[in-house]
């Protein structure tokens, strides 16, 4: 698998995700500057976490209109796999590649901690390293991760299997106690219609190394590398 990571001014998880992708794919990762207007030929494009353009105006709003994002949107339309993590998820919703929006956390506070996620389906190139119904432990680190869409949209997404991950308890219960930010229906990650684009608030790259206390994130990247090789 060959991957590219888009770097905006203010991206700060670009190195972390590149390390995790290199570890799982065995290939160097191409870093693409936001002002570039062409995407390299790769199997996966990743929009990393951080505070692109300082998150001024609204998280992800300015990044969604950068030169490189026009290319990402065009490529995604042709089936290019795209993964957005945290700020990357915000950018993808702002760019219209994914439904819904990420609002301020219900607590109004930034929150950094491990959360439990229920894998809604393993039937995607992004989640094939996990099993359907598995509970995985992945860290979050965000102030604006409160997923929202109207009920019709949420129903339609659920009907089409577009919910990838939900916040849950240690035992896998989808309840308020396991929901760290007030997200609608505990949604932590969503696919586009064709499951070729995934946006997720949690950071799998932060638990992809036993030295850091866990490898649930590595399983995801290993799965992606297998699916795209």
């Amino acid at each position: 698998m060959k991957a590219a990571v888009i770097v905006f001014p203010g991206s700060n998880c670009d190195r972390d995700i590149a390390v995790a992708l290199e570890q799982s794919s065995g290939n160097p990762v191409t870093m693409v500057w936001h002002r570039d207007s062409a995407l390299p030929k790769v199997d996966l494009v990743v929009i990393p976490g951080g505070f692109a353009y300082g998150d001024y105006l609204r998280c992800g709003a300015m990044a969604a209109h950068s030169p490189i994002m026009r290319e990402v949107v065009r490529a995604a339309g042709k089936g290019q796999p795209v993964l957005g993590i945290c700020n990357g998820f915000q950018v993808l919703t702002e760019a219209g590649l994914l439904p819904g929006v990420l609002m301020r956390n219900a607590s109004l506070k930034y929150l950094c901690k491990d959360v439990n996620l229920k894998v809604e389906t393993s039937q995607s190139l992004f989640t094939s390293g996990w099993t359907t119904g598995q509970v995985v432990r992945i860290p979050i680190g965000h102030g604006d991760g409160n997923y929202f869409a109207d009920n019709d949209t949420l129903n339609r997404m659920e009907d089409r299997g577009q919910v990838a991950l939900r916040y849950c308890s240690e035992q896998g219960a989808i309840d308020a106690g396991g929901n760290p930010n007030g997200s609608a229906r505990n949604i932590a990650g969503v696919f586009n219609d064709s499951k070729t684009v995934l946006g997720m608030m949690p950071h799998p790259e932060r638990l992809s190394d036993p030295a850091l206390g866990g490898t649930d994130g590595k399983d995801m990247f290993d799965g992606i590398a297998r699916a795209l090789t």
Partner: protein
Amino acid sequence: MNISASRGNRPTITPELVAEHGLKPDEYDRLLVIMGREPTLTELGIFSVMWSEHCSYKSSKVWLKTLPTKAPHVICGPGENAGVIDIGDGQACIFKIESHNHPSYIEPYQGAATGVGGILRDVFTMGARPIANMNALRFGSPDHPKTRHLVAGVVAGIGGYGNCIGIPTVGGECNFHPSYNGNILVNAMTVGLAPADRIFYSKAAGPGNPVVYVGAKTGRDGIHGATMASAEFSDDSEEKRPTVQVGDPFTEKLLLEACLELMATDAIVSIQDMGAAGLTSSSVEMASKGGLGIELELDRVPMRETGMTPYEIMLSESQERMLMVIKPEAEAKARAIFDKWELDFATIGRVTDSGRLVLKMNGEVYADIPVAPLVDRAPLYERPWVPTPKRAVLAPSSVPAPPSLTGALTKLMASPDLASKRWIWEQYDHMVMADTQQRPGGDAAVVRVHRTKKALAITTDCTPRYCQADPELGGAQAVAETWRNLTAVGARPLAITDNMNFGNPERPEIMGQFVGCIAGMRAACRALDYPVVSGNVSLYNETNGKAILPTPVVGGVGLLDDSTKSATLAFKKAGETIILIGAISGHLGCSLYLRECLGREEGAPPPVDLAAERRNGDFVRGLIRDGRVTVCHDVSDGGLLVAIAEMALAGRMGATLQPPKNLPAHAWAFGEDQARYIVTCADADGVLAEARQAGVPAEAIGRTGGPTLTARDGDAISVGELARAHEAWLPGYMSNP
């Protein structure tokens, strides 16, 4: 040289104007001797900030000089932007702690945020990529009406800056005491990594070389209110700006990346961040260190407001700015890098061989100051001081026992100083950069050196109530506790940075506290081969004549050669023997038990035996390195039972203890004797025998396992209940209106 005669620059220098600039009459006389004439307003402003306590260390310097600063692994000690130590393999660790106390009290969010921004710049201006932030916070009594607001603002500000720039905030400390009601302490520390052969310094060189300004534009923020006021100024219609600077972490992120990108080339001769006193201190510092002059054209400074005067430009403390001397041939290359990051890049002057700081604007000269005397003949005071009277050691018999040990323990674990600070550190991104191996809540944070097996251990500590009771002992204890915390995770302690927070040094008893703390720190640094490589002094922390507790915060850094061999404090295996390393006398003076359970703040603090500290610590570090122990925790605030409870809560596992017969149980449980650690292991006999051989006191005190913590027969509490009490206090406090 003809000095501009404009009215704004040549006001009548009245004694009032001099006083408003914080200069004493004899200091002004000294200025006149150096200048040989009356100063311009710009010059007066420059002397005022350069000779301020903050920039000149005039009250503290004679004492700071007595601290040990050298060791074979020290690359650069105090005097530069930050300290630099060698961590092997061609790598250097650069770190420093700095206070932002007064601004954080006035405007907690921006005050704390710019404190983080400032210390980050101090570290990356030397060529390091920052890898971790820490913070040591002291707030007033939880009952004080401002405290909740200050906690919320400071925490949000630290998080807002660190989270955005993407440097993990991996730990720190937070205490409450009424002495901080009117003067909170916000001390921020940054640790970075650089190639050992590519450290950047501030010494200007090469007359003719361009002086370049990069980063954010200059505005009127941060110009000190006191120095701003003058007859001419008050005629001006400009409103007075707040004296607290406003931070923009996004700009700092760009500045960080641009500087590191430029530093990878050979364009830079010297570089200095614009921190306190902005363009003034950065240009003076560079010229002074190089023994050269600097001439600046102030109209070329990127400004975000119109009509700024030379005085305002020189005194602005706008954030996210750097000053560099670069090689002339590299100018185009350097400019291209800053263009890429969309930051201002302006050549605003040049290095000269005149030894003078010359400031011009619109072709007129506004200041012309000889640099060497401005720096070398700055006032230096050996202020009168009186030693702090010694307190009597509290007789154990005067300290009543609690009805139940676990009842008192629950109260302690839910007290403001010992309660979980999760509410704080969960608001900090402590995992970005994906190298945080031990997260907040342990003895020390452990952050891996990227793509290596090595890791740095980092901690900050100070026990102000000990420092108040006995400054010398308290100073030694602060240093020793950092050393112990680094040891408890298995690291080899290498060096410290210090943040000396005190009251008004013009009062002999406050100066006595300062002198005492320094003496204790000096002794501890020597005994532990643990030099000071950087630091900061914050004086005048008092309101209405009431000073804060003396608070010499110590930030320690240690190295783990193999990060897989570090220890954590969470109980891991049931049925293991719990061993206490270190001697126990049950010292209850100045203890948290005395304060929280009995409402008494008295007695002498626990003695600090530095030889025992070293012996016990070296022994424990060896046990961890050799994999002989499963977990390790140091014993500090609250004593033995609190330490055990912290291990139980972290591991969600109980323990059963047996107090000895020769000591009152509450003195055993809550005494705060120093130089102690708790370890658990399977092979207790082996460890105890080895301890005997090494001359280290050690005894088995209980076993791990079960859902309850049993302090003695019939005196137990469930770990779950203790956890709820421990976790509930701070969120509960912060959610109350």
